[in-house]
């Protein structure tokens, strides 16, 4: 093939991120190793290394252990399990793929949540001999919680059930019921044998009754596009670029919608309004031209905006279309995944990082904790590692809040411990709560400048007091 034409074609590839869910025995690493190997992403020297390691740690006898191609850290290789999220890459003619390879055991729920947070598609592995297990329910719950809209159910080890169509249909039907229960939008079913490569890259001769595409073909052609609602422009201000007195640009990545020069915009939470004067798309900048402007820009683009008026805009603010304002509140209902050994304590101050803003806040109330295996709801007073719960959070400052369902980028946040600095939780905004405490923020009482200054002093210097802004 002519290389110049090849490069032209490959300039226009799409990108798809997917997550693989399964436990050690499901053959997850084997499946990934198979995809990388068959799409020629494994090189000879890596294969040779895996071959020498197979003799040491392998579990597949004389065959090369495909899992060793992907199990990264030495401790994992020794234990034969995947304990962290690993990212892998391969490409086909149409797409570049990023795989988030995550462990499946319950004690690694947080790792799976991490991998799921950036995925467009999830592959759920089910052992054909065992059918739907507790872990299948757990994985599916996390996938739906993180808002993944496409789930591929790979029914693996079909060679061990004689490639039985009945077994395949039975498992597919029971999974369908589970997907309905969780509200997973799109499901796809494939009978595979990761070990031998049936229906992974090429269609298997062992499943003549299967009319669908093999796994790779399915991923390659899957439509994952979402409708862009231009009016719902969301632009978290990331960085203020001010090289000289004549230029003041607001840099960031568009989280939703699109924007045009001349659009009326509102800065939140301050509520100040202005118009877009110019848009610089960072992608268009070359060494020769550092001022390449564009008339419009849309979601995912990293841009710089200048405004008609000199309004006060800083990092952490959100710029939106004036005609389509999100709700602004300091009291939110959220789904929270706890990720730290140290339990979550109600009332304690944590830092909440949402998009580019960091606001301190505390969890006021746990509505219920949900069991990832049975989906049962229970009342609890604190959350342990890997617990998932519906909570109410009270922030010390209001933020523009979209629900995670509407917008993953502006509806998601991480919880940072203010002493250890660790990421201790991940949250998804469900909605704004109307509560009495709201009044404390929008208080009718007027304060003097000295009182305001005192309030600011306390908030700046004693954040652990959880002092509210007046």
């Amino acid at each position, binding site marked *: 093939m002519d*290389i110049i034409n090849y*490069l032209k074609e490959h*300039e*226009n*590839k*799409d990108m798809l991120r997917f997550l693989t869910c399964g436990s050690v025995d499901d053959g997850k690493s084997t499946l990934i190793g198979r995809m990388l190997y068959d799409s020629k992403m494994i*090189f*000879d*020297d*890596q294969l040779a*290394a895996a071959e020498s*390691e197979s003799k040491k740690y392998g579990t597949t006898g004389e065959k090369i252990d495909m899992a060793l191609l*992907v*199990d*990264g*850290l*030495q*401790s994992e*290789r020794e234990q034969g399990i995947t*304990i*962290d999220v*690993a*990212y*892998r*890459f391969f490409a086909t003619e149409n797409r*570049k793929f990023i795989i988030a390879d995550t462990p499946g055991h319950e004690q690694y729920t*947080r790792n799976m*949540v*991490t991998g799921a947070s*950036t995925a467009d598609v999830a592959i759920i592995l089910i052992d054909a001999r065992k059918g739907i297990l507790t872990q299948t329910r757990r994985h599916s719950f996390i996938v739906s919680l993180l808002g993944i809209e496409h789930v591929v159910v790979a029914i693996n080890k079909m060679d061990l059930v004689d490639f039985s169509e009945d077994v395949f249909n039975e498992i597919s039907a029971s999974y369908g019921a589970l997907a309905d229960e969780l509200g997973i939008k799109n499901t796809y079913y494939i009978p595979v044998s990761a070990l031998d490569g049936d229906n992974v890259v090429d269609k298997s001769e062992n499943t003549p009754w299967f009319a669908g595409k093999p796994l790779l073909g399915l991923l390659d052609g899957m*439509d994952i*596009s979402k409708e862009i609602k231009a009016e719902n422009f969301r632009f978290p201000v*990331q*960085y203020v*670029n*001010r090289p000289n007195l004549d*230029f003041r640009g607001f840099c960031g990545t568009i989280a939703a919608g699109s924007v045009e020069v001349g659009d009326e915009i509102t800065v939140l939470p301050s509520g100040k309004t202005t118009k877009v004067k110019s848009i*610089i798309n*960072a*992608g268009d*900048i*070359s*060494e020769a031209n*550092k*001022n390449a402007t564009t008339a419009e820009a*849309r979601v*995912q*683009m*990293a841009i710089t905006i200048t405004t008609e008026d000199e309004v006060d805009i800083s990092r952490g603010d959100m710029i939106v279309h004036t005609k389509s304002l999100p709700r602004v509140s300091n009291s939110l209902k959220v789904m929270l995944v706890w*990720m730290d050994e140290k339990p979550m304590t109600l009332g304690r101050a944590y830092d909440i990082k*949402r*998009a*580019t803003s960091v606001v301190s806040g505390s969890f006021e109330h746990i509505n219920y904790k949900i069991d990832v295996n049975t989906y049962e709801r229970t009342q609890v007073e604190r959350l342990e590692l890997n617990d998932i719960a519906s909570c109410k959070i009270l922030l010390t400052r209001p933020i523009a809040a979209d629900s995670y369902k509407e917008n993953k980028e502006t509806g*998601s946040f*991480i919880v*940072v411990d203010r002493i250890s*600095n*660790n*990421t201790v939780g*991940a949250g998804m905004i469900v909605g704004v709560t109307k509560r009495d405490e709201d009044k404390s923020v929008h208080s009718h009482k007027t304060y003097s400048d000295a009182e305001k200054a005192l309030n600011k002093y306390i908030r700046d210097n004693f954040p652990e007091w959880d002092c509210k802004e007046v």
Partner: protein
Amino acid sequence: MIDEKRLTHLKQLEAESIHILREVAAEFSNPVMMYSVGKDSSVMLHLAMKAFAPAKLPFPLLHVDTLWKFKEMIEFRDQRAKDLGFDLVVHSNPEGIEMNISPFEHGSKVHTDVMKTQGLKQALNKGGYDAIIGGARRDEEKSRAKERIFSFRDKHHRWDPKNQRPELWNVYNTAIQKGESVRVFPISNWTELDIWQYIYLEGIPIPSLYFAREHEVVEMDGVKIMVDDERMPEELRKTAKKEMVRFRTLGCYPLTGAINSTATTLPEIIKEMLLSTSSEREGRLIDKDQEGAMELKKIEGYF
């Protein structure tokens, strides 16, 4: 099939990298970008110029010079600094210079440890940087596949692979205590092919060592090493032969293997890469020292 409204994979990767670079500039008080003069560094530099245009780069570039780099790399580095007007900090381990560390004499392990790992730690301590931007990619090596984009380092620059902070969505935890630091990898999700395609599409300058040319090479441990200067022992130099070669990665010349090639243009390099059967790190002698070598080096503070 591809929705017109979705960005191409290179545009998505570019936007992601720019987002990461801006996050560093906004959240840290004293960041620095590692500059190793290679193709990945060239792409990072290009992305950084885009992220902060029309302003200059808000952080300096740091080159840890082991004093055994290819001569051309140093010329190229200084020319880029002049053309683009960025601040360049160069550091070489003075103790290593005193000991006259040589990869030929002391071997790759000692040389890399003293000149690269220790040299890097000295430079970082000296600069007091709180964020260090590096050009590592997750597709390069298995232990890198598990590293975060914002990767926490303790006061001793050590990485704890089993205790990494969860990293979700594109929300990066940048909180650290004084003395600690974060290594940031903006091109984590790029593959070698992405890098080359992007260099080709954007016309990014790279050192000519990447293109095939006649060079004097000798065989060392089955790897072709270019004769770049007279510090190569004479008995080795005697065996030198002229061959058409190029380099897939650039580093210290005695530790960087050349491959036979006729690729003199970017499309030819990409074609050769697509047809090749060995991964890019194969030419690097340091990774082969021991199994899991990279993981151990990273724990010790190497990039």
